[in-house]
């Protein structure tokens, strides 16, 4: 059986005055039904663009996307309409992603209306069903987003995404605007829904402790490229790429006895406009060596664990905590 979603050498460039901005540059992965791929990286690394390109909210520059074995890289209008039922997105900011003039039930009903299959009564019943599924009390049916708190608003976003019974949902930082106690409620809801409906998630976030919790596999992106991908536990246990090491060491740990030593990166992201070929992390890397300016290739260092660093084998010998 083919994977639910397969992405091959996907590229998305944006034209700017100063040249081509390589937002997504040659990403490969596949995702099976019911699984979660976490995508992490700093702001500007192209993780949101990747999600949006897969959903055709942006047109890919190059590469191929397969959904259930079918090539959906350049869908026709009708095909795209059908795809929207299968693939959905939950946006980051529950404050700006909802139409302030639509009530809760109108917002959730909108995708059903566009789909145009159900009658008015059926749609209403479906909306009430969805509200119950995401834990919104029926009395909120006619309230407007501004009357609700962030957690409830994000539940509306989730209900909208679920309304057409998709198989795959891109979750673009769905909990980063929420307080921790509410964040936990929403994450649990998403996990429950995945279990019940067999959803596949692509979970885009910069919060590494959340991503470890929710993901099966994690992809680490840096300036549009994948630098490392591994099963969630393995990525944290057996970190190979120097960037991933620095990223993981920078997570503040809520424990006063186990403070890890932070690996401080110097400088900031280099510009993604017309980047030099070769390792994009080289300017900030502690282990940068002569061979590094060359093109990095993705290698499978252990089953399902990919790393794009030409020195990863040598680096095993070096103690990363020093």
């Amino acid at each position: 059986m083919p994977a639910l979603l397969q992405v091959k050498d996907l590229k998305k460039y944006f034209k700017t005055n100063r040249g081509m901005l390589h937002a997504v540059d040659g990403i490969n992965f596949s995702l099976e039904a019911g699984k979660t791929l976490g995508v992490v990286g700093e702001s500007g690394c192209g993780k949101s663009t990747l999600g949006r390109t897969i959903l055709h909210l942006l047109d890919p520059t190059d590469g191929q996307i397969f959904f259930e074995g079918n090539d959906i890289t350049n869908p026709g209008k009708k095909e795209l309409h059908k795809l929207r039922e299968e693939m959905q997105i939950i946006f980051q900011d529950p404050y700006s992603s909802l139409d302030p003039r639509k009530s809760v039930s109108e917002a959730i009903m909108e995708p059903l209306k566009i789909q145009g299959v159900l009658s008015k009564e059926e749609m209403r019943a479906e909306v009430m069903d969805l509200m119950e599924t995401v834990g919104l009390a029926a009395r909120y049916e006619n309230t407007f987003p501004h009357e609700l708190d962030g957690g409830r608003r994000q539940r509306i976003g989730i209900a909208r995404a679920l309304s057409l019974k998709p198989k795959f949902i891109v979750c673009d930082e769905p909990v980063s605007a929420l307080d921790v106690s509410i964040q936990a409620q929403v994450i649990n809801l998403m996990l429950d829904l995945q279990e019940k409906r067999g959803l596949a998630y692509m979970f885009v976030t910069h919060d590494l402790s959340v991503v470890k919790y929710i993901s099966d596999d994690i992809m680490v992106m840096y300036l549009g490229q994948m630098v490392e991908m591994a099963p969630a536990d393995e990525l944290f246990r057996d970190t190979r790429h120097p960037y991933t090491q620095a990223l993981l060491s920078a997570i503040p740990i809520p424990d006063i006895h186990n403070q890890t030593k932070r690996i401080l990166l110097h400088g900031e992201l280099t510009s993604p406009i017309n980047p030099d070929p070769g390792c994009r992390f080289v300017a900030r890397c502690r282990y940068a060596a002569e061979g590094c300016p060359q093109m990095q290739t993705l290698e499978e260092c252990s089953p399902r664990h990919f790393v794009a660093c030409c020195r990863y084998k040598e680096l095993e010998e070096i103690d990363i905590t020093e």
Partner: protein
Amino acid sequence: MENEQMTAEKLLDIKDLAIEYHTDEAVIYAVNHVSLSINKGETVGLVGETGAGKTSIARCILGILPIPPAKVISGEISYYGKDLLKYSEREMRKIRGNKIAMIFQDPMTALNPIETVGFQIAETIKQHNKISPAEAYQRTCDMLELVGISAERFKDFPHQFSGGMKQRVVIAMALACNPELLLADEPTTALDVTIQAQVLEMMLSLKEKFQTSVVMITHDLGLVAGFCDKVAVVYAGEIVESGTVEDIYDRANHPYTLGLFASLPKLNATEKRLKPIKGLMPDPTNLPDGCRFYERCPDAKDECSKSSPQEVEIAPGHTVKCFFAGGK
């Protein structure tokens, strides 16, 4: 260590502070009788959720609450034995930015977009010191270098800097007059983790160098663990638990604090579901009569809804606002 704390000099002592916001529709009870003291050279973390009243406390210390709608109902903020709340605006201006400075949450909006960063830092220095323009220029360059920005960028505008750099500029500005107290309002929330690590490391070394006291406002318990000496947990405008970091991280006692820790995703966790705190923070326009946490509390008893618990000191310096403090 204990002895050191006993003799430590109090820099700022907040007593019974209450702040309300009066709007046309309702009265918002933002800060409800908060007491907090900050010793010299100490870092205090003010932790809580959005709308808990953390920022109102900090703004009140600096005298930059928007009055009206804000209104200070009661309390005093004693600074060297004098009440800051009684200072005139003129007196306050001598303190603000000079003795007490603030780092704002969002570096993108805290800077003036039409002035160079150098001008903005020098402005603070000139305001509070009688020095020549040349000296002010020199000090500004020193400050920029101190936070890791080349002095050549004196004449650059804020939009020419990245987010992390802008936050460094804001920090340089706050530290320009070598303040005794630094109010840091979510200084790294808008930054990526790797940049956050850089900025924190820098703040730690500056704090040690200048012996500055810091009030760190944040919702990130991970950040507090690595940065603070004392912690105050704020909920619905009240401090529900306070103590040293060891008290809070090892011996947390208030059900809200315990709930906060439980709801965090842990890196070494094996369980399949998080443990959220049920419900939401009460509406600050309509606070419940009894304990503010009553509705969400897993250990609530009938008496909790009837009257408000008093603060109990369960160990020296470790206070908890709960009827069942200390026991379990």
